[in-house]
């Protein structure tokens, strides 16, 4: 094989790595802690590949704080249960360490306290829907943790064009509904 051919192949391999393997190695983590109709706290985490296909899913049984707990925790109850109780358990038991963690509510950003995984609230951008110059349909917020912005921004920029990164939250909520209605859940 001529040196020229080698160069071509090498370049091709590099390009493959940049657009292919590097991306396909990314794992995403989605965390949601909604409440059910009876106001119980639910929680689920889903790890996916770079195309948002599920690799791992776990959920906790619904938590119904007692009246005393509600009274005494007051406004701190939500964050305590969602972050320190549910998220901590879910993230601790995860078999893999994902590259980024997406949450669907601002109060879950407090997971910064309990995990080193770069985390951001991910939502669909509601502004400028008709603006053709708009490059992104997503809005993300890493809260006060500025260090996470670079990683999250890079992942979003790489994946956003060919996968809907917000949609997996819908699947998770649907799965949670299914899971908690099952007697053995």
């Amino acid at each position, binding site marked *: 094989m001529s040196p020229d051919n080698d160069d071509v192949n090498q370049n*091709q391999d590099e390009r493959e790595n940049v657009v*292919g393997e590097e991306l*396909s190695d990314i794992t995403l983590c989605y965390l949601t802690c909604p409440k059910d109709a009876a106001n119980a706290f639910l929680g689920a985490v*889903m790890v996916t*590949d770079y*195309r*948002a*296909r*599920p*690799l*791992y*899913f*776990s*959920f*906790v*049984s619904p*938590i119904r*704080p007692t*009246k*005393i*707990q509600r*009274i*005494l*925790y*007051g*406004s*701190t109850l939500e*964050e*305590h*249960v969602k*972050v*320190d*109780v*549910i998220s901590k*358990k*879910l993230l601790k*038991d995860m*078999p893999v360490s994902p590259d980024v963690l997406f949450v669907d509510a601002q109060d879950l950003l407090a997971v910064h306290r309990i995990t080193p995984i770069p985390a951001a609230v991910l939502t669909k951008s509601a502004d400028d829907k008709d603006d053709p110059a708009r490059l992104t349909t997503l809005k993300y917020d890493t809260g006060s943790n500025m260090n996470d912005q670079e990683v999250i921004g890079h992942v979003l920029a790489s994946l956003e064009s*060919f*996968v*809907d990164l917000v*949609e*997996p939250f819908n*699947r*998770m909520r*649907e*799965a949670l509904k*299914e*899971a908690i209605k*099952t007697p*053995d*859940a």
Partner: protein
Amino acid sequence: MGWRDRKRDQLINKYRTELKITNLPDMGVFNVKVYQNRSTIFFLSATKHAEQVQFISVAKQQAPVTILLDEIRVQLIDYEFPLRTPQLIVYDDVRAYTINLDEFPLTIQHFSFPNIRKEQRPLFPEVIDRTKIHRRIKRVTPPQKPPITKTIDLEERLRWILTPPIHELLSDPQLALPEKPFPFQTFGIKWLYDRDSALLADEMGLGKTMQALIAARLLWRARIINQILVVCPKTLIPTWQTEIRKWWPQVSDNVMLVGNDRQFFLRLGTLNVIIKIINYASIAREAEFLDKQKFSHDLVIIDEAQRIKNPKAKTSKAVKALRAIRRWALTGTPLENKVDDLISIFDFIQPGLFRDKKGQPSPAYCRAFLEGCLDIRDMIRPYMLRRRTEEVIDDLPEKSEQDIEIELAPSHYETYKQMEEEGVVELNAKGESITVTHVFALINKLRQICNFDPVSGVSAKLERLLEDLEEVSESGRKALVFSQFVEKEFGLKRLANELEQKMLRVSQFHGQIPPNRRSEVLRQFQSDPDITLLLLNYKVGGLGLNLQAANYVFLFDRWWNPAVEDQAVKRAHRIGQTQKVFIRRFYCKDTIEERILRKLAEKRRLFRNIIDAARPEPDSLGLTEEEIFSLFNIKVRPHKDTERKSIPRVILKNMDPTQFENLVGEVYEKQGYTIHHCGGSHDEGIDILAEKISAGARERVVIQCKHQQSNVGRPIAQQVWGVVSSDPSFTRGDLVTSSDFTAEAKQFAKGKRLSLIDGVLLCKLVHEFEIAHLENFSN
């Protein structure tokens, strides 16, 4: 200080000591309603995140106090860190309760899913977005969830829910689909993907093969299946290979065709072979083998599933003996003649829905039937998807159809006329022994003569075809020519020979082309610009082929059944066709061809007028025996026995009761009834229910079979009559026996909707309806 106070102080001091309260922040708003009618003291203690401690005693101002917990309003605000393990301590005179507020009962469940299978990616896949070409493809909503017919564990259900939407799956660059499927195809792919049992009955040309293939590919990538078995007619094997190369090129090297060792092929489960393809004839030869085997396939796809419409055929039995987790059937004509065709297909895709393993009606089917609320459409709806072209696609290119009248040259017509007259004389000479086969033979002979004059060799049709081919040639397009004849005297071979003499390059596709060459023929025609003409016969070339390269279709001679001609036309007029399609159907003036054409046209017109216009025409809209006879001036008709011939009654005697009941069922089936064996010892006067629609009304007949040596008496007749009279939906009751009836039974039946069929009459009916396979009982 009393013991009570000592106890309280002891407890408080204990916590004071343990918790080491320091720097109590001045925060918190307490709105506490205190009752003094009970001596209970209430304390709060809390540990902060950073080990700092807050301790509040709401009762420090006054003790003892009673606190009604319902009415406490405690707000801990402006905390930098949340509380950790706060405790509520309540104690009364003798007991102290510690409630750990951080006790949130929590159980967790985990589910892992396999990583997607990676496929070798083409470097620069060029995706054609066909929605830009066909702008008027209709949009669709996602399909309904599949019916849940078995217990599915939570993991499976979650996997189903968590799988990304189908458009996400299909947009994976690794999938590298050469064309973006249309919305209705995406719907079909998702619909199949979700179902273990499915009948995809889209009208021809909508891409059934492609939808099934992509759905299978997605299942394979998700590691839900490892291997796929495709069962199809032999002529369609090349089509499957082509479609695989197009929609799943990475697997082309992992496709295996059935070879000589069919049993090895069927058993083979190695991961290297991802798709196995077998034809119906081969699988039919292994019916007995399959019946005894226990190996199971992940997914079996049967193409042109109407091949298993006859439940008694060996092919049907073999296909139904295949064990599979997923069963998909593809056909554009799921119901060719009667509902039983469809039921037979369902016996494969959803065994037990209509019939059990022994072929008896399922309990649900029987119940629905007996309650008179049987609606087969409701039963099959969750499993069947059928879209007609006009429902999903607005912009198939225009289709121009013309019946081209060809006038035979005088000498040619003379030959024709002579042959016809001689033929009719011969038919009349046969007298009452004439059969429809004799008429058919003459018709075929005359149609061949319409193609080519056997005396002079001239062909008016060929001349017209050559003229039209000039138009094809000038437009730079390609053409298909269909004929039912292949022979070199009158058929495609002759045509090919004549055309080649005119320096035209033609390809042929018919039963005499070896199967291993057929795919090459099609590929060449589609891709070689020099080959502009493909000659096909209806039987082989009319099914499942994609020939959009052509936009001229010539029907050199005509088929009996318009549906078959439509199938042929749709080889070219289908998705992917971007040009207007010209269809020219040749017929010779004042010949048998014109007469057939007129009869068929009249039938179509009547059908459209009488039957709901929205309904498709039946595929069996051909000519009846009477109509075939009327094509000629034949003075005689086949001899019909006025005195029925019969089979020997000994045949009935040699049967067991089940065989007898089956025979009775067949007699009713031959009369056009759909029958339902109700079986069992508790049949309550009904062995068989027979149903048919006649003269627009539904006829329901209750049949009781009595296979016995002694005569059937009045009590049995009364029992059947009891069933008939109990339900006004029953038209009548038939009591059938292998022996005879007593005089009392006959007297009882008089004037009632009760028919008595004795062994003699039954034997005559069996003979009349030509029920075969009775030879085993003749000794």
